[in-house]
């Protein structure tokens, strides 16, 4: 359904987004790249007779850098004959760039022993000539100049073909399962312990007549964990609106405040009680991590919420919040994808959504087939991971133990595909 709707939008409103399109397709950074100008003294020292002598570098070549948009050129050379480790006089190299026949500009100072450099300050509409000097303690010796070169712009990065392939497989299986579910196929998803408790926790607050506190972490909307927390808030606040329980959500970012208000308001509207909603449910405190914690701790001991949700990105404050929540006797449901903070939630909260479960939670709680389908897609990713790990481990083990060539080749292939290029 959604996909059809979107097509309609595309046709009518794409003009509105034209500026955005232009903005992205124009390399903005190119405007800044010229600033890598030379911080060093560019005057060349003319060697005099008393100076320490050194051979210049030889075979200096310049080549286009692959898969860039013209901002990079690769230089290689053979180091000077007077370069260590044979005990020579070279203390370093300097790379100079001449753009469109202008004055030479120093672009890099390199330690001895170096034989290559990538200049990242070029643009596709100029031509460049380079030379490298061998620097001794008192003078510089210029190499021959390279031929002029104009950097190429490539339109596709083939170094990233495996990344693209994996993105396609993992992302594709998520999309396919969403589509399968949309067509009405029943998909099985097992129970997730912490999530079964969500409804009970809301019910408990209602029975006790005490509020619910929702903490969406301390990061802004540019973190997926915050978004995951907000989508779970969407499900929770529907129940809250039905039960007419009070919810309180102090936040440390005003963008999160805006999104939080929209979320809760929508839930109240869906429940048919828009009059019960108030902006006071979501308030901004401060962007400061511990200032926020100080205020939330204060709210906890004064308002005594029956249920506390800690769902989002947390740092050191995780345990301060969870311990205070525990002290006031609240049921606490926590979830974060920051591995370092999980131990503290496990120790101090009643239920903890571990990493991936945080992202699965909103899909699971919604019980919407489409969302559940995406969980199936994730499992495809996990199955791939498990299969590849077994394959890789077997290959490495056999390859190491018996020096089997084919296994070593397999290892290399797997490492290439699962490299981080």
């Amino acid at each position, binding site marked *: 359904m959604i996909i059809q709707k979107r097509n309609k939008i595309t046709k009518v409103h794409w003009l509105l987004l034209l500026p955005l399109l232009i*903005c992205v397709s124009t390399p903005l950074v190119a405007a800044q790249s010229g600033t890598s100008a030379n911080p060093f003294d560019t005057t060349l020292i003319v060697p005099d007779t008393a100076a320490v002598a050194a051979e210049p570098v030889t075979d200096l070549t310049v080549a286009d850098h692959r898969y860039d948009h013209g901002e990079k050129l690769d230089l290689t050379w053979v180091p000077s004959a007077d370069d260590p480790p044979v005990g020579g006089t070279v203390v370093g190299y300097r790379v100079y760039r001449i753009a469109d026949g202008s004055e030479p500009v120093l672009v890099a100072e390199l330690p001895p022993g170096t034989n290559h450099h990538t200049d990242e300050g070029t643009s596709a509409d100029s031509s460049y000539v380079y030379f490298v000097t061998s620097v001794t303690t008192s003078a510089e010796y210029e190499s021959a100049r390279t031929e002029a070169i104009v950097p190429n712009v490539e339109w596709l990065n083939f170094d990233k073909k495996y990344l693209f392939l994996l993105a396609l497989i993992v992302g594709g299986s998520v999309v396919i399962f969403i589509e399968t579910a949309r067509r009405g196929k029943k998909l099985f998803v097992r129970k997730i312990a912490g999530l079964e408790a969500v409804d009970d926790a809301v019910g408990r607050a209602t029975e006790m007549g005490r509020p619910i506190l929702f903490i969406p972490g301390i990061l802004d909307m540019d973190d997926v964990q915050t978004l995951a927390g907000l989508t779970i808030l969407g499900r929770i606040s529907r129940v809250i609106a039905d039960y007419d329980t009070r919810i309180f959500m102090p936040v440390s970012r005003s963008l999160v405040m805006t999104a939080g208000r929209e979320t809760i308001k*929508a839930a109240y509207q869906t429940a048919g009680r828009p009059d019960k909603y108030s902006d006071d449910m979501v308030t901004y405190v401060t962007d400061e991590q511990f200032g926020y914690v100080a205020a939330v701790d204060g709210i906890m001991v004064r308002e005594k919420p029956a249920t506390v949700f800690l769902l989002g990105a947390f740092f050191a404050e995780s345990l301060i919040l969870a311990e205070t929540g525990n002290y006031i006797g609240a049921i606490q449901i926590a979830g974060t994808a920051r591995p370092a903070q999980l131990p503290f939630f496990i120790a101090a909260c009643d239920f903890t959504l571990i990493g991936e479960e945080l992202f699965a939670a909103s899909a699971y709680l919604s019980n919407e087939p489409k969302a559940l389908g995406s969980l199936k897609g994730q499992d495809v990713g996990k199955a791939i991971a498990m299969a590849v790990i077994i394959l890789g481990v077997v290959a490495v083990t056999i390859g190491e133990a018996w020096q089997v060539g084919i296994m070593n080749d397999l290892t290399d292939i797997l490492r290439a595909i699962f490299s981080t290029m």
Partner: protein
Amino acid sequence: MKRQIPLFITFFVGALLIFSVFIPPMESAGENFTLFFDIIAVFAFFLGGGNLLRVHITKLKRRKQDWPFSIVTIAGFAFMLTVGIFKIGNPGGIAASVTADGSWFQEVFNYVLTPLQSTMYALLAFFVASASYRAFRAKNREATILLIAAFIILLGRTPFGLMVTSWVPESLSVLQIPNLAIWIMNSPNLAGQRAIIIGIGLGVVSMSLRLILGVERTYLGDDSG
């Protein structure tokens, strides 16, 4: 309508950024969009500041519980804002960094914010103790494993760790508590962390796709609003 345009913006921007990774001339899009975010976030500061003031002024007007403290918040906010925006006491004038040494802004940071921040942070020393007292109990097999791992690591951090296992021969030194602690950190801990991280990677991928495709859209509110 009120919801369709935003949904389309999300779809467009999200899809574009995914593809830009593979297209060199567009590679900088991510960088620029992040910068855009930073700028929007500063506008958000004003939204936040405005909201903070409104909450506390309302509290003050209605004489709600603890209203006198709202004066503290408003006064602190106003003072710091004045000092920061006008760079009061800043030895370098308007061109200098707002946090230059000697400026009032930096002094307040040093003598008010720093002690507050670090003391809040230091509360953790107390809370790790109370949490371990309560949580590390051998209630079931999982809790027992949690308890044993934590205890071994804690013991390994004191001189007693080496003392109680000093009888273990050097050839089996991995079983001495400090070494065992290191082994736990290097092996099982690494494995557990890695499983969690792989799961997170997949969770984020799926979550991002749900957002881009508009399956998750609660944060955008309702159509009628």
